[in-house]
């Protein structure tokens, strides 16, 4: 296959479309003289990112640590509980169904309750991120483990492998592509969780700075916080995608076909 010219490659087109939207945004705000408290242009937001870099960085550290810690806890919890449920028909009929039912409830509604239960500090925020991320991870773990092909399970049995062997060498690796897709969903939700919990009660963090600057009609700072939050989400998502390429490349190749 001849090599495509660079301006036809997917990443270049993506880049181009982003650039176009930003340009349009900038031009429109200037032509119509939109006030900056209403909708600042990209250059104003960039300037704000630079000018308030110190305070934004402080807040990013706070929110970032909430996201990462809650996310990692959800990952561990989801994998462990998902594994137990996949191996226990009893828990699948009871606990799993119960957990699925609780998902119908909007988790944002729990944020004030978490403050009552866990206080004003860091733990309530961690819990919110955890609640957002836990379910997709657990469900994908259960589904992944339950969809091991019949032949592979029979093979393990004919070969006389014990429970642990067939889990470690066959079922868990076979479930990885499923798990990762759940982890990707969780990565995007983790940022939402952190922002919600900071909206409800916080004295630091990007969600807090977003709320305060919006109340002060400080458009550029509000948008700067949003930009950083989006960047955090994209970073976490890309990290998981990279991990996917590294640990289960076979899942990608089967999708490409």
């Amino acid at each position: 296959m001849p090599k495509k010219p660079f301006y036809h490659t997917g990443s270049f087109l993506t880049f181009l479309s982003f650039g176009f939207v930003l340009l349009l945004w900038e031009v429109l705000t200037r032509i119509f003289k939109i006030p900056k408290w209403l909708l600042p242009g990209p250059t104003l937001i960039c300037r704000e990112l630079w000018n308030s870099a110190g305070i934004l960085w402080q807040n990013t550290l706070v929110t970032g640590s909430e996201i990462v810690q809650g996310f990692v806890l959800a990952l561990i919890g989801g994998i462990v509980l998902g594994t137990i449920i996949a191996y226990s028909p009893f828990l699948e009929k009871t606990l799993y169904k119960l957990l699925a039912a609780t998902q119908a409830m909007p988790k944002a509604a729990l944020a004030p309750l978490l403050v009552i239960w866990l206080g004003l500090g860091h733990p309530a925020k961690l819990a919110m991120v955890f609640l957002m991320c836990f379910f997709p991870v657990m469900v994908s773990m259960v589904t992944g483990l339950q969809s091991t092909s019949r032949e592979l399970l029979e093979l393990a049995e004919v070969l006389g492998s014990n429970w642990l062997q067939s889990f470690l060498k066959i079922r868990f690796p076979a479930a990885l592509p499923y798990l990762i897709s759940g982890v990707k969903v969780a990565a995007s939700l983790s940022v939402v969780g952190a922002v919600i919990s900071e909206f409800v009660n916080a004295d630091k963090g990007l969600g807090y700075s977003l709320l305060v600057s919006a109340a002060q009609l400080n458009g550029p700072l509000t948008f700067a916080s949003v930009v950083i939050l989006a960047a955090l989400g994209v970073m976490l998502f890309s990290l998981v995608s990279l991990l996917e390429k590294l640990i289960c490349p076979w899942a990608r190749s089967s999708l490409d076909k």
Partner: protein
Amino acid sequence: MKPLLSLKGVEKIYQTESREEIIALSKIDLEINDGEFLAIVGPSGCGKTTLLKLISGVLTPTDGEIYFAGDALGISHRKLLAMVFQQPALLPWRNVLNNILLPCELRGQDLKTYTAESLELLKLVGLEGFAYRKPQELSYGMQQRVAICRALISQPKLLLMDEPFASLDTFTRLELTRLLLEIWSLKKQTVLFVTHNIQEAVYLADRVVVMTPRPGRIAAIVDVNLPRPRTEEQMYSEDFSKCAKTIHQFFRKL
């Protein structure tokens, strides 16, 4: 001669969720001799796969006994059996060599010794130089060859094959059939080959077990008196057709 495997009055009854009983196999009496190539042929639903699962120990019979070399079949016999499925069932995250070594790994055997053996087997099936490729990079027929190597690595006394060539195109199928006969004459292990293809059964086997469904039972055991080594030419001979016809007649009555 003492049979390698004998089934006496083996019966398997499944219970559906509505408490209905389905007789998958009824009163199976069968003896498989050491070194024999035995084919089981029958339409789907005649219980041939169930029979294979009973022998491999994945299922236990509802009634009757199975003996392996004179002893009641148990877990200790599992290392003397190997299985090839209709699907290659290779692990996509392992390369060809590590897929073949999986049985040795699960049994805690020394992998170094078996690595040389694996490479030897790959050469035998015509996949020399593919040891470090991933299964996805191989064609379906090649993957099935790897699955055969994985079965042979444990030097089984009895090789169980559950319609191993059913998903292959005609030419790949002929190629693998030829290869299987070659391996069998070389390694001298007993083969139990399940298929729904009469021609394939006659071409490969010493004896063909004819099974009929509802309930799954043995209708007849047909001896194939064709000289070995078998050639594809024989498929057009009169003896071959006669034998295939004998088998076919049992299904016409269904």
